[in-house]
């Protein structure tokens, strides 16, 4: 995260490859289910044995005896509707919820986040020298309307995306944050409104950031959890 600061985002998970190296983020939506982005995974039928999610730790490389860390193998990947670029990862066992690990709410179906709602992105990715690369960083970003965003992006925005406003300084997601959450506080609850997707640049102060709009895919998410 560029322009963020060390923080607490108990639903943000780190996705690790077979060597235990972090490569993407994700969000814990049920004890045994994580949402991330398709771009992080080789295939919708990938054999993910050896891959795991790490939860509960604020550090990118926690000590082996870190009592807060939960490392849970991934047993299944399910790809979302093609244009969604979402994936759901089923974990081998349910995560234990505690002060460090929490679920994030799903938004109501087709819900539009009100403009200027204060949201957060979180991840263990590159900070571009703006912070500590070894800890979970969090940054605040306000929601921008799709109409206004589309003008800024010259008509390239899809209805299945949502935007946050550019700030006066560079703030945004970067390498290693992809798949992680855009979480917004609504009615005193943190809601997963967006998923961070790869973009060509990290955090430009003159352009809005775009995310996958989760509310369009809530029916699919619930169906996956019900049928799998």
């Amino acid at each position, binding site marked *: 995260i560029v322009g963020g600061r060390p923080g607490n985002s108990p639903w943000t998970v780190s996705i690790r490859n077979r060597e235990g190296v972090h490569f993407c983020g994700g969000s814990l939506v049920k004890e045994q289910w994580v949402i991330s982005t398709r771009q992080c995974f080789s295939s919708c039928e990938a054999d993910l044995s050896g891959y795991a999610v790490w939860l509960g730790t604020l550090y990118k490389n926690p000590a082996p005896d870190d009592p807060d860390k939960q490392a849970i193998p991934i047993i299944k990947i399910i790809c979302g509707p093609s244009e969604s670029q979402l994936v759901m990862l089923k974990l081998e066992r349910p995560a234990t919820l505690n002060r460090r690990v929490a679920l994030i709410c799903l938004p109501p179906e087709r819900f539009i986040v009100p403009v200027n709602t204060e949201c957060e992105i979180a991840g263990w990715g*590159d900070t571009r020298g703006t912070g500590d690369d070894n800890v979970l960083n969090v940054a605040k970003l306000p929601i921008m309307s799709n109409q206004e965003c589309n003008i800024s992006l010259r008509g390239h925005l899809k209805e299945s995306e949502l935007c946050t406003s550019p700030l006066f300084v560079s703030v945004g997601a970067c390498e290693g944050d992809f798949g992680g959450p855009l979480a917004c506080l609504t009615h005193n609850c943190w809601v997963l409104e967006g998923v961070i997707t790869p973009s060509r640049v990290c955090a430009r102060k003159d352009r809005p950031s775009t995310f996958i709009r989760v509310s369009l895919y809530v029916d699919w998410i619930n169906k996956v959890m019900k049928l799998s």
Partner: protein
Amino acid sequence: QCSPLNGFQRLKATQLMYLSYQREEYPMEVEECARRCAISFDCRAFHYNWQSHGCQLLRFTQHSPHTQLQRNVHCDLYQKKGYVRNCIMGDGSDYRGTQSVTEKKKICQQWRLKFPHDHRFALLPQNGLEENYCRNPDKDKQGPWCYTTDPAIRYQSCGIKKCENAVCMTCNGEDYRGFVDHTESGTECQRWDLQHPHRHPFVPNKYPDKDLADNYCRNPDNSERPWCYTMDPAKEREYCHIRKCTEKRRQLSSTTSCFRMKGEDYRGEVNVTSTGIPCQRWDSQIPHRHHYLPQKYECKDLRENYCRNPDGSEAPWCFTTFPNTRRAYCFQIKRCADNVEAEDCYRGNGEDYIGTVSKTRKGITCQRWNEQYPHKPQVFPTMFPTVHLEENYCRNPDNDSHGPWCYTMNHNIPFDYCAIELCAGETKPSIFLNPEEVVFDQCGKRDDRMQVLAPITGGRAR
């Protein structure tokens, strides 16, 4: 430092069935079981039951007559390498395979017969002289041989290849699946499924596509050549000597504008990371020193400073020109579309679709709606009598906003959307807004008192 298991090839979750054979199982550790089998000329294989820790010695292998392999999740079958390998190590005096023709295609004479050629070799359990199989009872340097059934040719070598020559390697040997189990200095390899003498991360279960079988040389980490951990505690790992193939490797279809799977065949010219950092040239060691030299990885196309994936990472990547960022992914390169072509179209959400498309967008065949396998449906014909849940046709009984779907015949994928697209001119309803009525459950709460971590300066403070 030898492990008795090194002399065996393991078949996981497998049991060898033999007609009317019932032998007792004795509780012991797997290595002790291997040791007992190794020293018994009578023993050719053993079962090890991981549930009961039982050891069952066997006098036959999968190549013996009247045997059959069966799946048994509690049991592994270990067979002496000499009986199952089709190549030889050293002079091949431990070869116990079933080849019975010579290198010039002469049929071998039965060892128990003295005709057409008389000989003085006795049939002993230790020399393995059975049937008319090629053997090397006199440690001939040419390897296993036999007397031939041709009266004019007394004996002939069988021409069984040495394991280091039997299977050649292409590129850096990532696909090498041969049977060399010694390093280039002659040190015995450590089994991948053991953690001694060296602890290591390459546990076979974690790398199902790398074939980390027994103690054979492999290249699971995209090193320059196949290698193994050694049985020498003082030497962690060493390369193996394996012949390079002389014929050209079959060129896999590469991509330039997008990447497939992990992008190992991406050959495009994107040369910045997904976050906009220019890539370092592969033939340069500045600012980052590395071992991915283009000349050592000839199949990886490490040209210029283009994003590539020479090490099986998650996507194409490169070393960056920023001294503080060693390497980064090029995730901005799109993945190639991998959906099959749509075969029909639907209107609305496809709730009225009654066509006959019966495969998913990935080309997987749909499960019949009235079947219970591989997935137990929660939607079935009697539940939705008006929706025509016929055969295995794609339908939308639950008015899924993403279109018709079906249960799939792939046991890992419970359901998926179908190879059908929205008909031309059809549009999806736009999203609506009703934030006032939102009610959330217990999720999405956190303790903000523990939000801030103090800047980390050496110690890990709260």
